[in-house]
């Protein structure tokens, strides 16, 4: 086969994900022109990254669940709850690394529980999310006094810098990237998303690997929760709220099929997450009313989702 037709083939197969990359580049260029380069200043890029950090980490972590064809809509609850538990079990909230470890362990447990609901008992994701959110909100309220859970100021200050967050994101990316691309956990979750019956009839224990997918999402949610807490300086029942919606948006805008499967890639989830942030940041910089930004974001999401679903339908027909 000639290389040119190989390239064409690649483009045809990955059209959704490639258009996400193109959209991101166009978005960067357009806003750079409109803001006369201000949007690409080091400071602004830092701001964009810091605002996107929770979504980036969670989107990476939830890739296994996405690959097997469901959505971890409970991840907002996991983020808030694991941060709160990590905080509560860390005296004076001074030992930040300890807080991370506890939050991630709790994330595995809680998300694993959601995984059992989803994989073993076939509870739809949306109901898992409702359970997660109502439990999460109540538990955080129980744990917090009237002032909320305030992080030890000195400890938070010493960790609250771009390198620390970057370090967390890279660590999560490396670990999840390895598991996703080079182990059977990734391989099997993609296979389950392609065709769960085929996976079963190939000897894959689908329930086990679906639960593991949720546990991995839980690790990332735990890390994202503490990162968010340090950045905000406190934890409340709104910590992490809405993250699942942003993660879903990132995944769909990144061109990843929500039915999952073998073409699921971490990098496009990150592209989606960064696009969302660059886009809303850009709109604010050119002076759009912040309440309108949400609306415009919604319209873009709708367009991406429409394209994505129609693309899928076409695939099935062929």
């Amino acid at each position, binding site marked *: *086969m000639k290389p040119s037709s*190989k390239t064409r*083939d690649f483009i045809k*197969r990955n059209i959704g994900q490639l258009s996400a990359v193109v959209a991101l580049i166009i978005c960067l260029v357009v806003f750079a022109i409109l803001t006369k380069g201000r949007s690409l200043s080091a400071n602004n890029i830092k701001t964009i990254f810091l605002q996107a950090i929770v979504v980036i980490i969670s989107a990476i972590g939830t890739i296994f669940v996405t690959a097997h064809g469901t959505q971890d809509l409970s991840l907002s609850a996991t983020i808030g709850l694991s941060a709160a538990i990590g905080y509560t079990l860390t005296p004076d909230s001074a030992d930040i690394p300890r807080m991370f470890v506890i939050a991630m362990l709790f994330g595995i447990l809680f998300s694993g529980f959601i995984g059992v609901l989803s994989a073993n008992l076939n509870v739809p994701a949306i109901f898992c999310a409702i359970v997660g959110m109502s439990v999460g909100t109540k538990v955080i309220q129980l744990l917090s006094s009237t002032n909320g859970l305030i992080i030890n100021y000195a400890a938070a200050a010493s960790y609250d810098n771009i390198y620390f967050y970057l370090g967390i994101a890279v660590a999560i990316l490396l670990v999840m990237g390895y598991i996703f*691309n*080079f*182990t*059977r956990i990734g*391989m*099997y979750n*993609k*296979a389950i998303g*392609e*065709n769960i*019956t*085929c*996976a*079963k*009839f*190939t*000897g*894959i*224990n689908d329930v086990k690997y679906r639960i593991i997918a949720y546990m991995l999402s839980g690790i990332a949610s735990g890390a994202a929760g503490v990162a968010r807490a340090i950045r905000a300086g406190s934890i409340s029942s709104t910590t992490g709220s809405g993250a699942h919606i942003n993660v879903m948006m990132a995944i769909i805008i990144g061109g990843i099929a929500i039915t999952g*499967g*073998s*073409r699921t890639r971490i990098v496009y989830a990150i592209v989606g997450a960064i696009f969302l942030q660059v886009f809303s940041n850009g709109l604010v910089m050119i002076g759009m009313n912040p309440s309108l930004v949400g609306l415009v974001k919604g319209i873009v999401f709708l367009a991406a989702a429409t394209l994505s679903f129609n693309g899928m339908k076409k*695939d099935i027909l*062929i």
Partner: protein
Amino acid sequence: MSRETVLEVKGLTKQFDTVLAVDRLSVAFKKGEVHCVVGENGSGKSTLASMISGSLKPTAGEMFLDGKPYSPKTMLDARQNGISILVQEQGTIDGLSIAENIFLGRETSFSKSGKVVNRSRMITEAKKVLEEIQMGNLDPAANISTISFEDRKLIEVAISLADEPRILILDETTTALSHKGRDIIYQIIGRMREEGKTIIFISHDLDEVKEYADTVTVMRDGAYVTTLTREEGTITVDNIRRNMIGRDLEGKYYRTDEQETAGEQTVLKANKLQLKEILKGITFDLKEGEILGIGGLTDSGMHEIGQALFGAVILDSGSVTVLPSGKKISNTTDAARNGIAYLSKNRDKESLMMNASVKDNVALASADKLAKKTFISPRKLKALSKEFATKLEVKMSSLNQSVGELSGGNKQKVVVAKWLANDSRIMIMDCPTRGIDVGVKATIYRIMERLKADGVAIVMISEELTELIGMSDRILIIKKGQVTAQYKRSEKPTEHDIIQYMI
């Protein structure tokens, strides 16, 4: 006897992008004949049927119905002209009752005002239709999704008959049916023929064609090859096959040896498999290098035996043991780890990831073999897939091609490659040549022979008796969940011998 022509196509051509699906085809269909159209997959049979039935528009050429120009714009248009088609895929609507499905689109004929449907009259009428196709035992008010695929297929027959078509097109309708269902279809064909109507019958099953066709039109690569007729006595399986492929089949079709052969070592033991009312104490041994055929009617429980051997159903009692290790199989993971492979009857839906690449499909069962601790090297994965896709001679543009784009025979090769890559020693093949072309079927049989020679044990579950007789060392016949007879290869059982134990 020369019969009157009812439908004639002249220079009919259909082009899809760069592919010429039907190429200047001219055929005359006569009254009171069963006219079979045969050819390998991709030869243009179904495209021809679609053009006649109005779902595709010809690129060029003409059609004449009763000597008048005929160019249907929709399937409804064709139906109003007395032409009905039955397709391979499912054509009923879940959630509606059987009666509602039968009279879909014609509900107003049960209504005086045109608004309110007289449901009880519709059900009474539906009952009559069902009785006509010998399915009077079904409740017309029941939801259609509660009945089996086969019964639904037969109801589709009833639906298309309700129009009283002059020309009925059957597009591989019998492929999905068991003997019972086929018999009902054959009776309908016979009756329509008596009434001077025309049946255009597209089929892969050459024995069926030989049995029922008055005229056979053979197509290859979209073009007309030849016409065979009953009057001239040219309709023989060999003759059809030769014309379809365009050359004499090289060498043999089935196995040519006449003795049962197998190794010493027993590799699998099924002991008193019990599953509800489906399996009642099935017991047998399987030796290395043995091809064990399992035959029966679709609902005899034989397909469930295959699933039970692979640990895919939970048995009420009984056990499946792999030897010499003595390991008992209780789930599919156990089965795959212990060298058991399963090729589903429903290949596309259950054995393949249609949108994933050949590479991913072939490697799917081999994670244990590929992983170094946890690490699976993409390079090693690719090499493994390449090795086995090449070994099985899968025709593909590259390892990255989607499996869904391959032909039926190549898809089956991918499934076999998947399990060989995993070093499977026991292959459970449920209808391994279903929906596969004649020319490619032979390839699958050669693969089975090669596996046998390598000492792989094969359980072949099949609804095709000639295939069972042609390939098996030993045949078990299943009826209502029990083994009713057993034949060795050297006993040379005939189809007749076997059928009497099936029904």
